[in-house]
């Protein structure tokens, strides 16, 4: 990035010149990209290799000789992947709606309204933020069991239905809004709910999108909690169901690979479409929350 140069160069001139330094830099970056994306490409290649094709050649071959989609069909045939997908979607939908509605409402109260007990309510959220989920795992399980929600999708969604982190994120977002519009609305006779829906929420849409996306990904990828709560195969979410791939298809890596590709496709597409929100969330909200 910094090079010793006798006189300042323009950006255009800098870009055109290829120095050994910048070549090395691109080489390292390319290697990292291969290391990070390589295993995914290899999985894709494995999943497409024909049944008779040798897998363990040396050197390994990336391009399948007899490409086929058969393995995807086999996986779908032997493991109810669509069912798992639907279950995961249902849980993720609950998490998204719960967090968007719950955290936005609570965040508004904490950030824009003044009332007795606001400090206590904020302290409750901060305290909850400091409790790592693993340390309350067993007690949460006992609670869910006592309410008869074990082995239900709602039981899976329940502990993260409204996350304290999201409440605090929304609180900060509302707090940082300028007060003038809200004051004008008060003068016009708008009550708290009207101000919330018409004035404040439209101004924090970006943060709401970040909350929704992280709630979705977090729920979609969660493994430990659904593993504990769900016992009936009909209710498995995708992660718990996929965990069985290894046992079921141990003999054939092609099938495991096909299974992982099926599981990856939706989340990769989701990321590709919404990636700017991922980065925005990390750069702004995630850091300060």
């Amino acid at each position, binding site marked *: *990035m*910094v090079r*010793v140069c006798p006189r300042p160069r323009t950006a255009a001139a800098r*870009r055109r010149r290829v120095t050994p330094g910048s070549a090395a*830099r691109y080489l*390292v*970056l390319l290697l*990292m990209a291969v290391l*990070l994306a390589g295993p995914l490409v290899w999985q894709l290649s*494995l999943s497409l290799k024909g049944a008779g094709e040798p897998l363990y050649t*040396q050197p*390994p071959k990336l391009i399948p000789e007899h490409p086929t989609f058969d393995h995807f069909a086999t996986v779908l045939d032997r493991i109810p992947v669509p069912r798992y997908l639907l279950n995961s979607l249902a849980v993720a939908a609950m998490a998204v709606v*719960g967090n968007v509605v*719950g955290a936005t*409402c*609570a965040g508004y*109260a904490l950030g824009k*309204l*003044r*009332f007795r*007990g606001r400090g206590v*309510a904020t302290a*409750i959220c901060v305290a*909850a933020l400091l*409790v*790592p989920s*693993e340390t*309350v795992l*067993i*007690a*949460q*399980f*006992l*609670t869910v069991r006592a309410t008869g929600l074990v082995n239900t999708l709602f039981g899976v969604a*329940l502990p993260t239905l*409204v996350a304290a982190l999201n*409440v605090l994120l929304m609180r900060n977002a509302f707090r940082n809004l300028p*007060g003038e519009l*809200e*004051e004008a609305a008060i003068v016009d*006779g708008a009550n708290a709910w009207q101000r*919330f829906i018409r004035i404040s929420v439209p101004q924090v849409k970006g943060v709401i999108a970040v909350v929704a996306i992280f709630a979705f990904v977090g729920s*979609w*990828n969660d*493994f*430990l909690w659904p593993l504990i709560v769900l016992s009936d195969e009909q209710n498995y979410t995708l*992660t718990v169901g*996929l*965990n069985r*791939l*290894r046992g079921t298809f141990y003999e054939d*890596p092609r099938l*495991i*690979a096909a299974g992982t590709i099926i*599981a990856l496709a939706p989340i*990769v597409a989701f990321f*590709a479409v919404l*990636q700017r929100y991922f980065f925005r969330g*990390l*750069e702004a909200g995630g850091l300060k929350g």
Partner: protein
Amino acid sequence: MTLSVQRRTSLKRAARPARRAGSVLATHRWGLTPWLFLLPGLTVIVLMVLVPFANTLGLSFTDSTLLRQGEFVGWDNFRRMFADERFTTALLNSTLYTVCVVPCMVVLPLVLATLVSSAGRLTGFFRTTMYLPVVMSPVVVGLIWTTTLDKRGLVNALFSTLDAVAEPVPFLTDRWLLLFSAMFVTVWTGLGYYMVIYLAALANIDQSLYDAAAMDGAGAVRSFLAVTVPGVRSTMTLIAVLSSVAAFRVFGEVYVLTGGTGGVGGGDLTMTMLIQREGTGLQARTGYAGAISLVMFVILGALLLAQLALQRKRSS
């Protein structure tokens, strides 16, 4: 009723410009409205986090099992824990995990971010590629690496093609190799995440500092050490704590790589895996699992406190 009262007060107060700023917020002193806004969120947080935490505290001093409400046994669970070989193994593994993973997470993503931020038009491409593993489920990541690191998997095939090893490396069956493989997978997954955080921090460094360093004859490495590192020091602290808490809690990678067994003889158990094993299933000893959870909470709490102390020291 509440609403109309509060509207009247707010109108009355808003009419007095001198106190306007404070008055707008001071409209719900006794109203029910704020609590209606808070109801769904607070209910979930209290019932699913704070109450379970209190229950964990209570449980950990009893000999409860899943099917039987236990009796108070004092510090028995904690005494038994330190004599329990699986607990000491899990504590060792999780600690080792943290010690090995954290330096990688603090340093590697920073180097990467520095390289990526100077990649011009390719910055976006590299950022997206490297972030991709972050959005993937630990189960999927674990499965991908299970096939890749298998005795006959890609890595061993490459090794023997290059004649680097005489026999396949037992990445997934040897106790220590498995632990290090899992660490590698964790770093592989997390690189992109921390890199994006660093990219944001790098953007805040004053460009003129780099120019000044260049004037003084500093090369790329020198200016990295003299300008970049001091410029992102607070971010480094933050990432150290975030990644240490995450590393100590590791579950998915080790679980999937060991096929859910925790390795041969449970040699690769981590703290979270131990809690999951002790606290679930029909044989569950929930009291004992609660006590382990509590120890884990104390350790994680200490890591968080260390962060607060460091930050305060730095800002004062």
